[in-house]
């Protein structure tokens, strides 16, 4: 049964002031337009209904003669709902909802920085993603911005938050880090070994992805989506495709849906394997790193052999999938899962019984359940901090409506919980992969691609290995990509690291950070 709590609240609260937007798909995710001055009131109503802010974004809709669209998406259990309003060209402002939802803080800074819409009442208007040496009036997501030219560099300095007091010192780290990882800057304030504050500064790998979408065809867009965060190639390209299919009404064949889930679970398993090893490594237990990376490598090789790409990039296409598997391939996957399960369980025992590892991962980097809820974090990070959420369960597409995943939930919120949730998820993924392979329906692997008509918007969520990925796409006056909003799980989960690190010691930072393993590229776009 579909729940309509949020919809009922908006409709009864706003009455005729809330107008449903008929151009928004799918029908299960309605969009309501409210007067601009009441935008924050809607946030308040959503907050009191215990909803979570999923994303907030803007779109330049001047080509349609209606200024800039301002959007906020809310979720409660299985229900997603979008509240929108317009800011006219002569007054690009909207009421900030940061006071209601912490996650809005960075969303709105980003909207201001890249789209040039001003959130009035926002307490912190320092730019986000846009670095201090960009020309101030450069708003790349505005249609009038010429994205093909390099920008001049101006002088400027980012103002970090300062902590003062006797014995407080600052440690700046990055953007280039010690390991083979993505770049970002962390500013610690510490007393002795204890971290009293951490401030993240990201944006280093911003390469203009959202703007780039607008210059691509719908078909090429899926390739870019697969490279928003290379470790989540399947999940991102799937989410993009589903959002697009929601606009065009294209239904991929049953077999394609199952193969998509197969690839999604393989991606989840490979990433979880690599990360559990890496967490152990950051606690100085190298043995597990090598063991787990061996298992991961074997999965990637099977991917290459059966799907033609180690990360299965470009294997999901709008309308279906670009892979086919025959009976030999099925047998190979089944025997691979048999092998993996055995090897994996042996390593899990070693992980579980190692006292020195336990000492490092327990009670380290605790994200309390109430903080997790307040921030609106998603994915395994949320599940390790008491939040039972998983889009595969709450917003399932076949075969997840039949093969229902069990989402493990732990309450301790520490490094161990984040690792253990992922151990449980690997077990579930192995089960799901087997069920998919054993029951794979016979059918085509793709339906014909349908080009969207002008001025339609589509929405989709997909549970990638990090958590809920969100795409909102909009077609322009010629049916082209007018806007493609990407919300990686990291966009909200980065906030959680800042909270979880309080009171930990500086040398534990790499371990904590690894246990979240957030995407820089998916965040910076």
């Amino acid at each position, binding site marked *: 049964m579909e729940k309509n709590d949020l919809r009922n609240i908006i409709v009864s609260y706003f009455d005729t002031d809330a107008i449903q937007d008929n151009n928004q798909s799918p029908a299960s995710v309605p969009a309501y337009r409210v007067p601009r001055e009441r935008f924050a009131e809607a946030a308040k109503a959503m907050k009191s209904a215990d909803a979570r802010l999923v994303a907030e974004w803007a779109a330049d809709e001047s080509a349609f003669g209606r200024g800039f669209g301002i959007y906020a998406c809310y979720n409660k259990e299985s229900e997603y709902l979008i509240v929108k309003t317009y800011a006219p060209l002569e007054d690009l402002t909207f009421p900030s909802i940061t006071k209601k939802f912490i996650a809005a803080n960075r969303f709105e800074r980003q909207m201001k920085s890249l789209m040039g819409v001003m959130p009035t009442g926002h307490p912190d208007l320092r730019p986000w993603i846009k*670095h201090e040496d960009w020309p101030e009036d*450069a708003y*790349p997501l505005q249609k009038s*911005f*010429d*994205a*093909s*030219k*390099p*920008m001049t560099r101006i002088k400027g300095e980012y103002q970090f938050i300062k902590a003062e007091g006797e014995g407080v010192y600052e440690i700046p780290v990055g*953007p*280039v880090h*010690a*390991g*083979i*990882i*993505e*770049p970002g800057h962390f500013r610690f304030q510490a007393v002795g070994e204890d971290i009293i504050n951490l401030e993240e500064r990201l*944006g*280093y*790998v*911003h*390469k*203009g*992805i959202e*703007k*780039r979408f607008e210059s691509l065809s719908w078909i090429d867009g899926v*390739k*870019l989506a697969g*490279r*928003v*965060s*290379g*470790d989540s*190639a399947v999940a991102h390209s799937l989410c993009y495709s589903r959002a697009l299919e929601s606009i065009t009404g294209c239904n991929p064949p049953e077999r394609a849906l199952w193969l998509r889930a197969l690839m999604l679970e393989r991606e989840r398993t490979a990433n979880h394997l*690599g990360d559990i090893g890496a967490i152990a490594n950051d606690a100085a237990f190298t*043995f597990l790193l*090598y*063991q787990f*990376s*061996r298992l*991961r*490598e074997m999965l*990637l090789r099977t991917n*290459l052999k059966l799907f033609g790409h*180690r*990360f299965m*990039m470009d294997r999901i296409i709008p309308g279906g999938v670009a892979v086919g598997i025959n009976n030999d391939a099925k047998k190979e996957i089944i025997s691979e899962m048999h092998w993996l399960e055995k090897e994996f369980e*042996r*390593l899990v*025992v*070693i992980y579980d*019984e190692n006292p020195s590892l336990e000492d490092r991962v327990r009670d380290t980097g605790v994200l309390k359940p109430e903080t997790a809820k307040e921030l609106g974090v998603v994915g395994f990070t949320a599940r390790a901090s008491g939040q039972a959420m998983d889009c595969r369960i709450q917003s399932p597409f076949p075969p997840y409506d039949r093969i229902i995943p069990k989402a493990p939930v732990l309450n301790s919120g520490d490094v161990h919980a984040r690792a253990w949730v992922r151990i449980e998820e690997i077990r579930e993924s192995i089960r799901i992969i087997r069920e998919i392979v054993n029951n794979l329906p016979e059918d085509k692997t793709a339906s014909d691609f349908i080009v969207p008509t002008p001025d339609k918007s589509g929405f989709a969520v997909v549970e990638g290995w990090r958590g809920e990925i969100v795409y909102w796409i909009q077609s322009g006056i010629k049916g082209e990509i007018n806007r493609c909003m990407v919300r990686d799980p990291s966009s909200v989960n980065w906030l959680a690291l800042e909270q979880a690190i309080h009171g930990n010691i500086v040398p534990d930072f790499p371990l904590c950070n690894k246990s979240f393993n957030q*995407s*820089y*590229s998916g965040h*910076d776009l």
Partner: protein
Amino acid sequence: MIRILHQIFRTGIVTEPLPAEAEAEIQELGAKLEDAVRRRFRRSLTIRAVDAGSCNGCELEIHAINNPIYNCERFGIHFTASPRFADMLLVTGPVSRNMEIALKRTYNAAPPPKLVVAVGDCGCNGGIFGESYASLGSIDKAIPVDACIHGCPPAPAAILKGILKAIIGISL
């Protein structure tokens, strides 16, 4: 402990010869290589990896050359945290504008003689991200590049091969 030892013995040595064509090429380059690494880098090549705006896909494959199957250490290759110790920079991504300065600084911090290898299509030619307000469109637009390894992402064996070739390239 006993379980750990068991697992180690059960696993054995999993390091593989590289795929036949790569291996053949390496055999061929082998003699020169040994000489080059010995002469120029005193038997070990130290790499600093720099992400200059990648999607993280290339990083994952650079990680993979460290796994026990590709085991880059057998060639005397290892990764360092500081550019000060680096003989080679392995750079990924199309060079985001926000990383340009940090990349140049890292390059300047590495002592000569230094090699720069661009890993992945977007490091070589901008790839899918191309050239824009936020992306320079290739690594050689920011710092001199000695060799390019194509692929999106290049497979671990291709990365290893590319590194080895780059070393020989400068000693020829």
